[in-house]
């Protein structure tokens, strides 16, 4: 046997005549098949050998004093082990041979024609092997299919929600144009008000589009690791939010302690920081005189721990468990699409980090992020 059998083939023989077993040995040796074999002739011994010897192949006589090949086959099939089973017997009728094959016997060989045995063995083993491979491939396919169905469902709900988030501000714009027409003859102030509102609605549309873009960028692009100046990055991200209402009223502190250089993905970090900072600003507590955002980071050679604390309106304990879910808006004055923190979580996960949010309603919110410090890129 040249194919794929480097170790000895383990053969379990169900045969009451040692003499016949010897004949089979010789037929195999002639074809240079290396093997070890055990011969049994009773039910109990057969079952035990099946378990302990763990054979690669079974050669079975048909009729034994207290046992027969069909019962033996049943035992093998019930044990769910996938072992080729060949009947080697004195003489069988054609009908019997056919019925054996139908029951699951791989082949039958006449003792008077043992020269056929090596080929029958080779053939059966190959057959079993390719069956096993097909089965494995089927399983892989099925798993992929389930995965794809799941992705499809998620995509469906994503498209539904996104289209809603895009349509809502658009419907507002159309409605505003309608009422502006109604009020056309009235004063300029009313028109100015409508223009402002149209502007606001289109900005919302724009924000949603940006969120979708950040989301897909994160999914589709590989990490780009380079040195990060965290303090500077925090400042830059904060400065980009100057247009938000109340920005100037909030005191911003950035405190970075580093024991090592920080290597991570600058773009993804800026996405994380932008969403969290803008939440801190949007949900500031206007009743407080000393509104603040405190960013504290410590960088070690293995990881960076980043903590962002604000004294804004906080998050209701009922909503805390869901803040990272897609399309969840947890604040009454929330006007976004509910994608922000979902995108943040996705980005943090892409960076193989962790994120947690703690909050006390009316008092503070703290976001804790831990990110691995990547190796310095070689190029």
């Amino acid at each position: 046997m040249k194919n794929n059998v480097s170790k000895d083939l383990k053969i379990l023989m169900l045969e009451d005549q040692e003499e016949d077993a010897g004949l089979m040995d010789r037929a195999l040796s002639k074809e240079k098949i290396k093997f070890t074999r055990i011969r049994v002739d009773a039910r109990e011994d057969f079952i035990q050998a099946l378990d302990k010897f763990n054979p690669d192949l079974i050669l079975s006589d048909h009729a034994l004093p207290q046992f027969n090949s069909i019962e033996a086959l049943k035992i093998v099939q019930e044990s769910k082990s996938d072992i080729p089973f060949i009947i080697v017997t004195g003489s069988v009728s054609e009908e019997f041979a056919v019925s054996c094959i139908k029951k699951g016997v791989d082949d039958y060989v006449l003792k008077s024609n043992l020269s056929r045995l090596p080929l029958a063995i080779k053939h059966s083993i190959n057959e079993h092997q390719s069956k096993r491979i097909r089965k494995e491939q089927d399983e892989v396919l099925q798993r992929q299919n389930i995965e794809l169905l799941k992705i499809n469902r998620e995509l469906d709900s994503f498209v539904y929600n996104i289209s809603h988030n895009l349509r809502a501000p658009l419907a507002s714009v159309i409605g505003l144009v309608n009422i502006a027409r109604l009020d056309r003859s009235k004063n300029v102030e009313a028109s100015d008000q409508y223009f402002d509102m149209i502007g606001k609605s289109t900005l919302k549309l724009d924000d949603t589009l940006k969120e979708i873009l950040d989301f897909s960028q994160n999914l589709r692009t590989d990490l780009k690791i380079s040195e990060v100046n965290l303090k500077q990055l925090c400042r830059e991200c904060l400065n980009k939010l100057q247009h938000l209402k109340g920005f100037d009223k909030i005191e911003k502190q950035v405190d970075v302690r580093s024991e090592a250089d920080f290597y991570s993905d600058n773009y993804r970090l800026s996405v994380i920081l932008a969403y969290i900072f803008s939440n801190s600003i949007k949900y500031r507590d206007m009743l407080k005189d000393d509104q603040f955002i405190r960013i504290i980071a410590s960088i070690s050679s293995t990881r960076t721990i980043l903590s962002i604390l604000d004294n804004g309106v906080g998050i209701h304990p009922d909503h805390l468990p869901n803040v990272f879910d897609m399309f969840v808006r947890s604040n009454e004055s929330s006007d976004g699409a509910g994608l922000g923190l979902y995108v943040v979580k996705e980005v943090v996960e892409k960076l193989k980090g962790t994120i947690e949010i703690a909050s006390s309603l009316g008092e503070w919110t703290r976001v804790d992020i831990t990110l691995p410090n990547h190796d310095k890129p070689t190029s």
Partner: protein
Amino acid sequence: MSSRKYRAVMLIDDNEIDNLINQKMIEASAITENIYTHTGAKSAIEFLKNMEKMDVADKVLPDVIFLDIDMPLMDGFQFLDEFANLSQVTRKKSRIIMLTSSINPQDFNRAKKYENVKLYLNKPLSHDSIMKIDV
């Protein structure tokens, strides 16, 4: 103007721009004398609960409630669940029209299952659709 169809309608929408649009459109079509506006479903439920307690509940309760679906904290469907627990007077008097930007058939089918929902309209509210309202 006693020819108005309704004495009062209620608007429930977290988006103030949409509330303004709806209010202006309804005013222009002159179907009601009063418009109550709520930016949260919770406050709207509280408002209705207080009204039911009054002797004149049948008079002051809104004839029609325009209800948005996608709202933070309590959404339109949660409002409908709460509404089902209100008094029979309220449920009979106040008929609900879903007014949403959602063109999602799932939302439409889900809304249809509530017996208090009489109509499903897409935003923006137009003069034509207001004039066709027959609930």
